């Protein structure tokens, strides 16, 4: 049987970062991917926060396949017919060290896996890990694959196999998945000429836009996004799995509703559908595995539920890479020390705790639940109605005062000023 110090399952961002880190630390590394190439199975909204790569791949931005750099971020609160946006632009984000990178996962994941290969990791695609191999004491000793004679022995297995993580389940680290802990992301990639995207979104050169939308799917607490690549725009929704099931609305119908919104349709008019895709996302702090390691196994990225969801904002790729780096370091250290038991691998968790990965997830742990509550969901509508009142000039009537408008609009939505103040405070606190 072949043996590697470290076998990484899944060549998404978590897996490639883990493989690269372990290989750089001198371990022999096998990186398994079930797709025909890395990224073939993977979906994101479009934006990657790449600073986490600064140490691992110096000047990564000179080699990574980046379409555009985010220089415009906006949050839109919408009702059926209205929209109120906060729109932030920063031209400096189009220069190193950059802030958000827009990329296709087929290209980005293949690139990062290639970096791991060049550092010495062995990448094998079109191969699904089907089971864990166990030692007599129950500790994980390798993986079985669907290749002929495809058993591989490992000092440490790093499970980076994404949101469904069959390996974490098999290792007993993921309690049977619950619909409440996942959201479905469904998206369309729409083609438009590059100069048309530049014109509609107000961009030049490699500048890109990332827009998040709240409230435009009336019956379901979904959020929506629009992200620009060079000559495509991604438009999609993120909807809690349980709410989607309850609503009996189809995912593509939610996307249709977003695209038809009068504040969004002008961005997309005449675009051509290039690809439709769907994928699960771990949703909220409850999705994070209580234990991230067992004897002989570490779990990273989506497989471990390490995704930051804070209302309409989602960061998963950087959390996958951050956890992959920590796992690669911990695995290589354990292999070097000749002890890959649970205690020896516990360093993985402490690495995550002292980094942004568990730090941010802890800080924002209450946000997803709060943003989705009935109470908070009325705010996009309330904000739009207040804006309408304030911006409508109905002379000869005199203008109402701001507090009068707020009080009246709040009352119309069944709330009092006191509720607004309390919710505002709670929201502020949940964001730390």
């Amino acid at each position, binding site marked *: 049987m072949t043996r590697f110090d470290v076998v990484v399952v899944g060549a998404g961002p978590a897996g490639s970062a883990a493989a690269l880190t372990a290989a750089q630390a001198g371990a022999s590394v096998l990186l398994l991917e079930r797709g025909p190439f890395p990224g073939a199975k993977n979906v994101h909204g479009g934006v990657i926060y790449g600073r986490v790569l600064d140490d691992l791949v110096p000047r990564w931005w000179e080699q990574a396949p980046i379409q555009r750099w985010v220089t415009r971020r906006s949050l839109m609160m919408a009702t059926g017919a209205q929209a109120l946006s906060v729109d932030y632009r920063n031209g400096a984000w189009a220069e190193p060290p950059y802030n958000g990178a827009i990329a296709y996962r087929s290209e980005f994941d293949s690139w990062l896996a290639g970096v791991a290969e060049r550092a010495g990791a062995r990448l094998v695609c079109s191969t699904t890990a089907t089971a864990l191999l166990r030692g007599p004491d129950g500790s994980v000793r390798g993986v079985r694959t669907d290749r002929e004679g495809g058993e591989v022995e490992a000092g440490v297995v790093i499970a980076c196999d994404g949101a469904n993580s069959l390996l974490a389940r098999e290792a007993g680290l993921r309690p049977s998945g*619950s*619909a409440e802990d996942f959201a479905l992301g469904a998206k369309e990639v729409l083609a438009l000429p590059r100069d048309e995207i530049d014109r509609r979104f107000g961009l030049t050169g490699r500048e890109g836009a990332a827009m998040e939308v709240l409230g435009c799917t009336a019956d379901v607490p979904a959020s929506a996004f629009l992200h620009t690549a060079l000559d495509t725009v991604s438009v999609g929704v993120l909807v809690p799995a349980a709410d989607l099931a309850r609503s009996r609305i189809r995912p593509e119908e939610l996307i249709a509703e977003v695209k038809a919104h009068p504040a969004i349709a002008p961005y997309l008019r005449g675009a051509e559908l290039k690809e*439709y895709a769907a994928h699960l996302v771990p949703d909220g702090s409850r999705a994070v595995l209580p234990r991230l390691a067992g004897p002989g196994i570490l779990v990273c990225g989506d497989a471990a539920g390490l995704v930051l969801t804070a209302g309409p904002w989602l960061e998963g790729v950087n959390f996958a890479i951050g956890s992959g780096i920590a796992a690669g370091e911990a695995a290589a250290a354990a292999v070097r020390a000749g002890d890959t038991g649970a205690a020896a691998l516990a360093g993985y968790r402490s690495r995550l705790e002292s980094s942004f990965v568990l730090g941010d997830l802890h800080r924002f742990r209450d946000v997803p639940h709060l943003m989705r509550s009935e109470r908070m969901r009325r705010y996009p509508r309330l904000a739009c109605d207040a804006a309408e009142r304030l911006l409508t000039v109905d002379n000869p009537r005199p203008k109402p005062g701001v507090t009068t408008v707020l009080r009246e609009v709040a009352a119309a939505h069944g709330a009092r000023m006191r509720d607004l103040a309390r919710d505002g405070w709670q929201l502020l606190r949940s964001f730390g």
Partner: protein
Amino acid sequence: MTMSMLDRLRRRRIRRSARREAGARPERDAGGRGDAPLRPGRGSADPAAGRRPEWSEYAFGDRMATVEFRVQDEPHIVVDTAACQACPGQPCVTACPADLFTPTADGGIVFNHEQCFECGLCRLVCEGAGGDAITWSYPRGGHGVVLRWS
């Protein structure tokens, strides 16, 4: 405004499931990966689509035809249709983003694995409804969905 749009979407869904019950799934036949990307509304079989000139929707088969699938013969997901007969809500039917779960006349469900995104949502909503009708795994390495622009 929003309500009317949702109504429109609901009507379309009801029409689609009516077609399905009649045994005809014409949209699904548009197999293969289209060479040219789709223009919205082109080839749309949906009369409601024409009512909104701003943005008419794709027929579902055209939507799925934009995605590459390297289909393996044996299904990677197996649905126990007898268990589905006891399921009151059958949430998989509307939730599946690829629309692969089709109710049958006897109250069961047939599943077609060929255009599966391998997302795992069906298993979650099945378990969420208290069921365990879905035996779920990934296709063999190198098979199944291949995404390029996502």
